[in-house]
């Protein structure tokens, strides 16, 4: 009776073979008049060109939004969006926020309770009271 081998399919892990940046689009909204957009306007004039060159895979949109708080809106491959208001921030702070959006995925923020997260199974096996040294009362 022929025995067929189990067909094992490799799990796709982003970054193992190829890496796909999760952030596909970033939109920068600012106001021409408001003082809270001062840092954003300076960022757009001086730092955005360099940021766009370093990240050619991200679609960058610059749009004025009068009388509104300046924001950076990041759109991800899973369809979710993340918005960060940058009112009153300086150029370097806005650059950090843009890099934060670029480095994150579209997943919701979760609270991590375990120190180690791994896809591999436990090496020593999961505890069982019926195996190993018996407890003597």
């Amino acid at each position, binding site marked *: 009776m022929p025995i067929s081998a189990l067909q094992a399919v490799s799990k796709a892990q982003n970054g193992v073979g190829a890496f796909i940046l999760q952030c596909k689009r970033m939109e920068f909204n*600012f106001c*021409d008049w408001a003082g809270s957009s001062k840092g954003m306007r300076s960022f*757009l004039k001086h730092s955005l*060109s360099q940021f766009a060159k370093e990240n050619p895979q*991200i679609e960058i949109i*610059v749009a004025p939004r009068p009388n509104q708080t300046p924001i950076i809106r990041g759109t991800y491959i899973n369809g979710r969006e993340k918005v960060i208001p940058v009112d009153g921030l300086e150029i370097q702070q806005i650059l950090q926020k843009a890099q934060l959006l670029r480095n994150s995925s579209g997943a919701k923020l979760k609270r991590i309770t375990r120190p180690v997260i791994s896809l591999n199974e436990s090496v020593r096996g999961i505890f069982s009271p019926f195996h190993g040294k018996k407890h003597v009362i």
Partner: protein
Amino acid sequence: MRRAIPRITRPLATRPCCRTCCHPTTVATAPRHFATAIPKKADLPLQEVLRRKIWGTDEAPGAPGTPPPAPQIPVVEEPTKDEEGYIEESDGRALPIVGLMPGLTEWDVPTFANILEPPSTEAIHAAVHRAVVEVYTHVLNGKPVDAPATEGSVAEEGFTPRVRIEVRRNGEAIFHYGDTSIEEEILRMSTGVEGQVVEEGVVGGWLQEGLDGKGWVELGFRGDDIKFAVYKRVYRLTGIRVADPDITRTKTVADLLTHLVAKPPPTKLFDILTTKTELPTLPNVK
């Protein structure tokens, strides 16, 4: 509301009787009806009764239906026109005209700077340059800064644009006249002109320096008298007034120009990004 005096509720007796002794009385001594309410006629409202009582007459004003009284205008006697030296006023505002030159209408009041149209930026720069050259020429020749103006046309004024002002790093300023006759002409003809700032084609390279904020505009005023003399001359040439606190804070010619020349309207950031940055050339930027 309780009344102070109880109302008489029981009917009176047929024969008038005094209340205290209940003895029958005669008609002459019949008790009178007593009530706290004001006796009023049945056909008049209370408001009308009160109005008549207040005015003290039956023909009180303000009654509904009566016309309002005519306003009384006081009659003012006009002065007689036969007085010696009397000039009948012709001002449309019914105000006496004082101090006007003969031939002028009521609106042609001569001012210190009779400028009708605001000058251009280049004209302002030329006026300031001219004022600086004139004032400092007087200073260099030991003449009073604010020399009295003399009447006379200066239609051929083209001497001040030929003067080049060099400002060194140590703050020293040198006036290059080029020819002694220019300096003499400036001293002779630097007064009595309003509105005639500069002729076209006589402007030197100092105009572009001034527009760029360099060169002669960095000249500092050596004293308040020079500063105010320059401003006075500029005001007469351009008609632009500068507030006293701004003049006090002015240290250089460039500071004075900032108060004279209007700033250009602020451009939109979108225009700056599309014209002065390389964002439009990037393929991933919209």
